[in-house]
């Protein structure tokens, strides 16, 4: 019987900055088509985990496999090829100010020479429509858009090349509750549309309940719990209970100096 190869597999991932250890030993498996959400407090290592997977940061130890291919230590060309499988929605959308909205959406298509500019524009307009934006938004500059619209453009850019894996970095941060829900629904629909595997990092529990199939919690550089979304309320972990209920009292101690 053929064993299904995980889409993303982290083993003993270790990252430190100087003497400060951010990731101690992260183990995580994301299966194809699954939507995994990593939760954890600020500074717990969520963003660093994503950046290590994408090669934006080099891990100090451990293994990162994408479709069974080891990413740690591979050459730039090989990494670039594997990165074509990815789409990413950044926390602040990270749209390019110097380009109009449609070119932002089509950037990956043009960079990978997947089509000419005319076709890329048509795809960009279609993707903008998919995230609820009218075609005339395409000619605007990113600076002319509201925060919610920028997130939608970022989402359109993330799905433009129909990636196999999509990362969402704090997708609802800075948005009002209604816009957050709109973005969450779009994420679910778009991921389903392109049939992608999704990895989201957030501390917004409404996002977790809407987006996730599985949830992992990271604390002090280690994954301390992983399970299906439905089990999160009965995890038996005091850490999870404290986090999802947002209580100050519990095993998770925030580094706050009190006067």
């Amino acid at each position, binding site marked *: 019987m053929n064993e299904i190869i995980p889409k993303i597999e982290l083993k003993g991932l270790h990252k430190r900055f100087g003497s400060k250890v951010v990731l101690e030993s992260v183990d995580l498996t994301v299966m194809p088509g699954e939507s995994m959400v990593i939760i954890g407090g600020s500074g717990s290592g969520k963003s660093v985990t994503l*950046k290590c997977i*994408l*090669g*934006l940061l080099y891990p100090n130890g451990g293994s990162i496999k994408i479709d069974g291919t080891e990413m740690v230590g591979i050459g*730039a060309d090989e990494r*670039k090829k594997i*990165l*074509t499988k*990815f*789409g*990413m929605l*950044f*926390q*602040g959308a*990270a*749209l*390019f*100010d*110097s380009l109009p909205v449609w070119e932002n959406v089509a*950037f*990956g298509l043009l*960079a*990978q*020479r997947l089509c000419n500019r005319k076709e890329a524009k048509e795809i960009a307009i279609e993707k903008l429509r998919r995230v609820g934006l009218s075609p005339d938004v395409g000619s605007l500059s990113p600076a002319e858009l509201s925060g919610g619209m920028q997130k939608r453009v970022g989402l359109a*850019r993330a799905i433009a090349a129909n990636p196999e894996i999509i*990362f969402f970095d704090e997708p609802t941060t800075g948005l009002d509750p209604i816009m957050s829900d709109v973005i969450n629904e779009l994420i679910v629909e778009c991921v389903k549309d392109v049939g992608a595997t999704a990895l989201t990092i957030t501390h917004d529990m409404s996002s977790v309940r809407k987006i996730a199939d599985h949830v992992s919690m990271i604390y002090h550089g280690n994954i301390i719990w992983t399970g299906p979304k439905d089990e999160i309320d009965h995890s038996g972990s005091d850490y999870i209970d404290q986090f999802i209920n947002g209580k100050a009292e519990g095993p998770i101690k925030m580094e706050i100096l009190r006067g």
Partner: protein
Amino acid sequence: MNFLAVIGRVTISFLQAAGKIGIFAVNGVRHIFTPPFYPRELWRQMLNIGYYSLPVVGLTTLFTGAALAVNIYEGSSRFNAESTLPTIVVIGIVRELGPTLCGLIVAGRVSASMAAELGTMRVTEQIDALVTLSTDPFKYLIAPRILATVIMMPFMLVIVADTIGVLGGYLLATTKLGYNSGSYIKSTIDFLEAIDVMASMTKAAVFGFFISLMGCYHGFNTRGGAQGVGISTTNAVVSACIMILLSNYVVTEMFFSS
């Protein structure tokens, strides 16, 4: 002992910085010659660096040429050598003031803008976004900026700076100091040699390289938020100006040292 330790630390950090800038420069230049190329981005940079710097470069050199003519006239009249004015103006502008002033002005305008733009892109994760979109930031951001500056400095800005600087001297000399227009132009052309123009353009290309290198290096390596962008911008302008003045001496020695 402490004093020696301080000297050692400063020396090591200076060498580390020089090494990092050297590696950055080699990477930037290497990506100019290896595909994929981004002609649209190159054109955008050429327009921004060359065309939009023309007014400030032209104005500065026009008045500098005029001021130089006044100074030379005053100085040379003390020993009845007023006829040397056109020669000294043209050599002074073409060999020295045209490229150096143009370099310093472009350093203030372009190096700062590159550092601020790339620094903002760094702190807002736009450079990370480029990587996730399978685009090498060195190819898309750094190589076009270096190439555009190295092309536009000698082939547009310094040619204009030299011409307008000489024109400034000519206008002042013919309208205020009573020089004959025809003989002024003849003296200017007769005494200007090809090597003067070559030195001017070589200096411009070298200055252009350092202006873009410092702007890109400091912007690309920005850390922190708005304050980090401010620090990068300041460092880019200061280091570009130092490199311009330093390399100006080296190139002058190369061309004119007997």
